């Protein structure tokens, strides 16, 4: 089709089209010859209706119109470039205005005149409308020049203009505002945003556009056309800036790109109508030329000659005179001393601040990480002007273990890193003419010779010319003589490195280790890397360790990854026992990844063996090593529990912690620089040990019966009956019979029950009375509302606790779900089938298997609770705690009760001679049943689930299979923990317990049984109050019950966060717990239920209600407060603010009161 026919056809098509954007987009992407794009665009722009339809937002009057319209259909990069070029060419006058504003803004920012920059941007807005370029720069300018409030005020005003605040415009503006916040770290921000954007359900083209504007220029060739297309539809200014970006990207990624000729023609076309220095430089690069210009750089001359004093003076003078170009800033940095990124005055000029940061980077000293962050932040937030992209690219190269351009081959990670450095440098340099000889040193390998020759053609005789020649050929001695000696050595070393002459590089670089930090830092890198490439691994290990110990920032420039990769089995054996080897593996674990953690531990063991000790605390005896930095590092970083557990001499977690405490106590004496860190660590680990001991003690105190309390209450009830028994006993006593009983008893105590059975004891009223009394006391032992066994079993074990402990590992592994509070049905377990094909047979089968497993597992728990953890008495009933009174037991009791013994002695005989031993046997039976029945059954259930999942034979469920396999042992350990509860309670320590420690233990247990549970505990000074340590079990029950209530009743699928506050009120602490309530919870019905519970509490029904499992936990809480703490159950529970639940109660700190009446 010839051009005239094509023009007619597109005109007709557009005129008759009802969907003009779609049809134009399709035509330009398919059949419309690019040669007539300019005519077509001009024709469209001449017609208002068409312009409004197809190019509606070239100059958006407000944010509402910015990127408001659908971009044209996607096409090839070549066609996109030609289309955008044609469009931009029609807007030359506007673009010229933009160029002038852009230059003014750039100069103003360089001089830190943010007021002028903002004024220029406001002016630009009135002339050109808004744009992402403008909004992003204004946000940065307002943040730096005014305040966070100012930039937030501005972004909120913009967002208000955007009709649909959920669109791409609002999204970009919001996150650009976020990235400007001073607390945001650009690297982390970019990483998080890339992940977030990857998960937005939009096309890859829009994702690339979002990334380009939020996380910085999109340096991927793959989506270049999309970024250009979307930007061009946002505004004229954004389209133009995206065009420049595309050109830089293509040059930086591949000079032979097939789109090069099209791009070259496009730039040439634009440069004919727009006066932009960048266009001239770019077209030169695309044509194979390297743009350069002559300039006087006195500072550079002085510095290259070695005259630092003049260099610094000249550089600063030039900067303050308005020439704050990077070479001057670089030289000001190189000649400064002791840079400190955190000591920057707020009012320092941009170039002053940049010089301080660059100095830290050059010298790899001070807070170099902060300096790199400052530079990255400036590069990201001011990406609209080109002031910081080159410093940013140079920072990345400077803080790398790769020395400049190392010879190939390189390992893949190093190759990728080098490519990224080269690309970023070329991207930063390619749109500017070179004028500084330093630029030649900075340029990427491929462009270096081109730039060097271009610059040489402009340089007369002088040291700058020498420097450029020396970069090209360091072996040319004639070029070196006028250059300062340190730079000569660096040039020679760099040149040797490029030629793979590692011995020569090493020889040249070594003397520089004794020079100023600027040269030394580069020498360190050259030395370490040369040793690595020479396979002088032992020396390289020593150098890396010692350089790190000398300057921790050196980790950025030491080849830790490549070195560790080379330390194979044979090298490790050869170097076994060296502290430096252990340090290198530790550095790898800390700064690279965990792939060599095993070698870190092995190298630790090798050091112990080489030193002849079995545990690190024995090293302390070797005091002659105390001042050695390597030795201190070894103790500080490697003698930690995560490594020391491999020492056979250390036999458990507690010993591990104690060993570490000993080491840190020792370090405290010798390493003053880490004093605070050590003191904090000792405190934290000591507290951990105390908490562990307290937790264990509390967890094994679940089955406690207050015999004194029961005795007191029983005496009131049965004292009279016992008196009757005593009277009968006295009346019917026979000395001969007593003697026979005593003899039988001595044999019984020796283990032989036969003599007791032989005693012919007639049934009589005395014995009947005794039996009745013993059963009454036994029942009191079991049923007493305040102190009895069954209440303890209920509150401590049956009422959710056992089930939660056993379900915890399964919840964590997502193999089971909670039941919905309202329906009592399991919530659907979609954790493993979300990504499976919906309703696929595999997904359905897995869902069914998970549901069956959940039901079976809970069935097992239910059986344990209803058939095992129950007390069996005469008259039937289930339970493994058999407290039926046998004739033998009765005879023993009868024989032990001396005539006229007081009631408490009698009660003691019944409890200690019958109830407690029988309880002990019952608990042992439960433990045995858990080991022999419950644990194997649970394992079988998991095995069955595993086999159902594996029967699907699909990779979709590999993670699920592994989760089940892991759960087998974690569930077994949960059964072991539960088993350990079934022991008679030991006495709980009454040592004072800080309240915050008690809550910490409760929180840790809650997190074990409710994976993902969170509580924000802010106790203030109340947390440091100490309570009687024997309150701990009760405290745990109260808080775990309250947390459980929140988890199960708040209506969320994941545990809600509970906030806990405490206030001291005289001798009590008043706790307030608050948690959100999901909207699905029927608040009115819940409030009614709550009112009923509170009424029951007021009526003291809690004394009986908890024994009936399934009732609310509030009863349990009140009961514990009343009976364990002897406190007033002044509970407040209510729904507030519509969607919050608040629970308040008071606990006494000490056992101040005697028994309540």
């Amino acid at each position, binding site marked *: 089709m010839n051009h005239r026919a094509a023009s007619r056809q597109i005109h007709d098509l557009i005129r008759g089209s009802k969907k003009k954007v779609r049809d134009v987009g399709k035509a330009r992407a398919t059949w419309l010859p690019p040669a007539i794009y300019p005519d077509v665009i001009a024709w469209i722009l001449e017609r208002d209706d068409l312009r409004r339809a197809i190019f509606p937002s070239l100059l958006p009057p407000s944010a509402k119109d910015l990127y408001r319209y659908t971009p044209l259909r996607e096409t090839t990069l070549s066609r996109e470039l030609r289309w955008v070029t044609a469009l931009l060419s029609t807007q030359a006058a506007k673009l010229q205005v933009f160029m002038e504003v852009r230059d003014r803004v750039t100069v103003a920012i360089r001089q830190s005149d943010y007021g002028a920059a903002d004024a220029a941007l406001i002016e630009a807005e009135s002339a050109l409308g808004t744009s992402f370029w403008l909004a992003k720069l204004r946000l940065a300018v307002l943040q730096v020049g005014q305040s966070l409030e100012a930039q937030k005020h501005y972004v909120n005003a913009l967002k208000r203009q955007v009709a649909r605040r959920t669109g791409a415009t609002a999204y970009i503006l919001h996150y650009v505002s976020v990235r400007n916040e001073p607390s945001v770290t650009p690297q982390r921000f970019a990483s998080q945003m890339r992940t977030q954007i990857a998960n937005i359900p939009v096309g890859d083209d829009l994702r690339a556009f979002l990334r380009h504007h939020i996380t910085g220029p999109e340096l991927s060739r793959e989506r270049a056309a999309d970024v250009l297309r979307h930007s061009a539809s946002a505004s004229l200014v954004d389209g133009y800036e995206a065009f420049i970006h595309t050109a830089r990207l293509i040059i930086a990624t591949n000079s032979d790109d097939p789109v090069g000729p099209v791009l070259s023609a496009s730039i040439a076309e634009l440069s004919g109508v727009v006066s932009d220095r960048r266009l001239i430089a770019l077209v030169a690069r695309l044509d194979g030329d390297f743009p350069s210009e002559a300039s006087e750089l006195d500072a550079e001359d002085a510095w290259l000659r070695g005259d630092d004093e003049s260099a610094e003076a000249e550089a600063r003078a030039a900067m303050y005179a308005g020439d704050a170009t990077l070479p001057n800033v670089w030289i000001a940095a190189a000649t400064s001393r002791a840079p400190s990124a955190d000591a920057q005055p707020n009012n320092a000029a941009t170039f002053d601040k940049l010089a301080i940061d660059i100095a830290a980077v050059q010298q790899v000293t001070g807070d170099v990480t902060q300096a790199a962050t400052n530079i990255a932040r400036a590069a990201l937030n001011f990406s609209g002007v080109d002031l910081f992209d080159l410093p940013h690219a140079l920072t990345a190269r400077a803080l790398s273990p790769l020395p400049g351009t190392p010879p190939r081959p390189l390992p893949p990670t190093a190759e990728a890193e080098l490519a990224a450095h080269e690309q970023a440098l070329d991207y930063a340099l390619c749109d500017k003419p070179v004028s500084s000889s330093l630029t030649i040193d900075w340029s990427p390998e491929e462009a270096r010779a081109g730039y060097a020759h271009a610059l040489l053609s402009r340089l007369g005789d002088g040291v700058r010319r020498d420097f450029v020649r020396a970069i090209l050929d360091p072996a040319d001695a004639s070029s070196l003589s006028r250059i300062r000696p340190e730079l000569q050595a660096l040039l020679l070393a760099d040149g040797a490195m490029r030629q793979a002459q590692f011995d020569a590089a090493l020889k040249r670089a070594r003397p520089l280790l004794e020079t100023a930090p600027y040269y030394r830092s580069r020498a360190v890198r050259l030395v370490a890397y040369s040793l690595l490439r020479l396979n002088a691994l032992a020396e390289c290990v020593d150098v890396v360790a010692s350089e790190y110990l000398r300057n921790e920032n050196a980790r950025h420039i030491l080849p830790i990854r490549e070195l560790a990769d080379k330390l194979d*089995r044979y090298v490790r054996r050869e170097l076994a026992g060296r502290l430096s080897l252990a340090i290198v593996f530790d550095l790898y674990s800390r700064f690279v*990844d*965990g*792939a060599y*953690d*095993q070698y870190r*531990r*092995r190298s630790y*063991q*090798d050091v112990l*063996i080489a030193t002849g000790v079995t545990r690190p605390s024995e090293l302390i005896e070797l005091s002659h090593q105390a001042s050695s930095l390597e030795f201190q590092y070894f103790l500080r970083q490697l003698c930690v*529990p*995560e490594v020391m*557990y*491999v020492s*056979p001499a*250390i*036999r*458990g*977690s*507690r010993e*591990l912690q104690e060993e570490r405490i000993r080491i840190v106590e020792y370090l405290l004496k010798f390493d003053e620089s880490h004093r605070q860190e050590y003191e904090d660590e000792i405190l934290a680990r000591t507290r951990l040990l105390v908490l562990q001991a307290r937790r*264990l003690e509390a*967890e*094994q105190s679940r089955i406690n019966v207050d015999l004194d309390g029961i005795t007191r209450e029983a005496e009131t009830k049965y004292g009279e009956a016992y008196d009757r028994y005593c009277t009968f006993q006295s009346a019917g006593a026979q000395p001969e019979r007593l003697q026979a009983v005593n003899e039988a008893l001595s044999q019984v105590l020796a283990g032989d029950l036969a003599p007791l059975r032989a005693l012919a004891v007639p049934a009589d009223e005395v014995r009947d009375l005794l039996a009745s009394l013993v059963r009454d006391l036994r029942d009191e032992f079991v049923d007493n509302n305040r102190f009895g066994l069954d209440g303890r079993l209920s509150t401590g074990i049956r009422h959710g606790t056992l089930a939660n402990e056993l379900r915890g590992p399964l919840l964590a592994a997502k193999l089971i779900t909670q039941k919905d509070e309202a329906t009592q049905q399991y919530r659907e377990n979609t954790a493993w089938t979300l990504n499976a094909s919906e309703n696929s047979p595999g997904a359905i089968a897995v869902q069914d298997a998970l549901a069956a497993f959940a039901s079976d597992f809970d069935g097992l728990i239910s059986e344990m609770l209803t058939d095992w953890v129950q007390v069996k008495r005469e008259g039937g009933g289930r339970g493994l705690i058999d407290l039926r009174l046998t004739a033998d037991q009765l005879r023993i009791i009868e024989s032990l009760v001396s005539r006229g013994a007081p009631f408490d002695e009698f009660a003691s005989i019944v409890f200690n001679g019958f109830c407690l031993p029988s309880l002990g046997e019952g608990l042992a039976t439960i433990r045995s049943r858990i080991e022999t029945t419950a*644990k*194997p059954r649970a*394992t*079988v259930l998991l*095995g*069955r689930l*595993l*086999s159902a999942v594996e029967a699907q034979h699909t990779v979709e469920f*590999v993670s699920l*299979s*592994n989760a089940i*396999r*892991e759960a*087998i*042992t*974690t569930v*077994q*350990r949960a059964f*072991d*923990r539960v088993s*350990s509860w079934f022991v008679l309670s030991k006495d709980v320590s009454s040592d004072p317990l800080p309240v915050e420690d008690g809550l910490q233990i409760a929180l840790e247990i809650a997190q074990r049984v409710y994976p993902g549970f969170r509580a924000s505990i802010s106790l203030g000074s109340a947390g440091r109050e100490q309570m009687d340590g024997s309150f701990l079990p009760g405290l745990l029950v109260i808080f775990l019950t309250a947390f459980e209530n929140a988890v199960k009743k708040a209506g969320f699928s994941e545990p809600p966060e509970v906030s806990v506050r405490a206030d001291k009120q005289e001798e009590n602490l008043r706790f307030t717990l608050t948690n959100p309530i999901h909207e699905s919870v029927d608040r009115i019905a819940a409030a009614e239920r709550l009112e009923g519970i509170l009424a029951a509490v007021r009526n003291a029904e809690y004394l009986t209600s908890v024994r009936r499992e399934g009732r609310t936990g509030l009863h349990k809480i009140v009961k514990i407060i009343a009976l364990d703490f002897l406190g007033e159950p002044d509970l407040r529970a209510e729904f507030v603010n519509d969607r919050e639940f608040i629970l308040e109660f008071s606990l006494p700190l000490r056992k101040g009161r005697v028994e309540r009446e």
Partner: protein
Amino acid sequence: MKVLVVEDDDVKRYQIEAFIRSRLAHAVLESARSLQSALELVGTFNPDVVLLDMSMPAFDVSAAEDGFEHLPFAGREFLEHLDLQGVSPCVIVVTSFRSFGKGADAMTLPQLDAQLSTDYADVYRGSVSYSSIGDEWQSHLAQVLDSITSHNG
């Protein structure tokens, strides 16, 4: 023959022990439930064969001991320790997992098998995939054991 079974899954350990008893009537058996108890038994029991789980806690778990950490490559640590000590029982990894570890250290069973074969060639005799339901692992384990006994004469 002295056989050490290193396994923290109680049921799996019982099954392996029962299999060994049925297969090697005169075998003397010991068992360990954690890395450290296994290391201790290497010194005191001096096993000829070790049937080794790969993932287990550092210490025996009890009410008072949380095991410190569940180590995805505890078996590899064990082999490293044998290397350190210079002792050489025949080691067979018996695992129900098909992949191990996370992040940079993640690997599949074949990858792990290859690594162990290279790094611990003196002692490592291969891996057996265990399943609590099927019994293919038994015949596989029997084969490996036979090869060990025939090799040892």
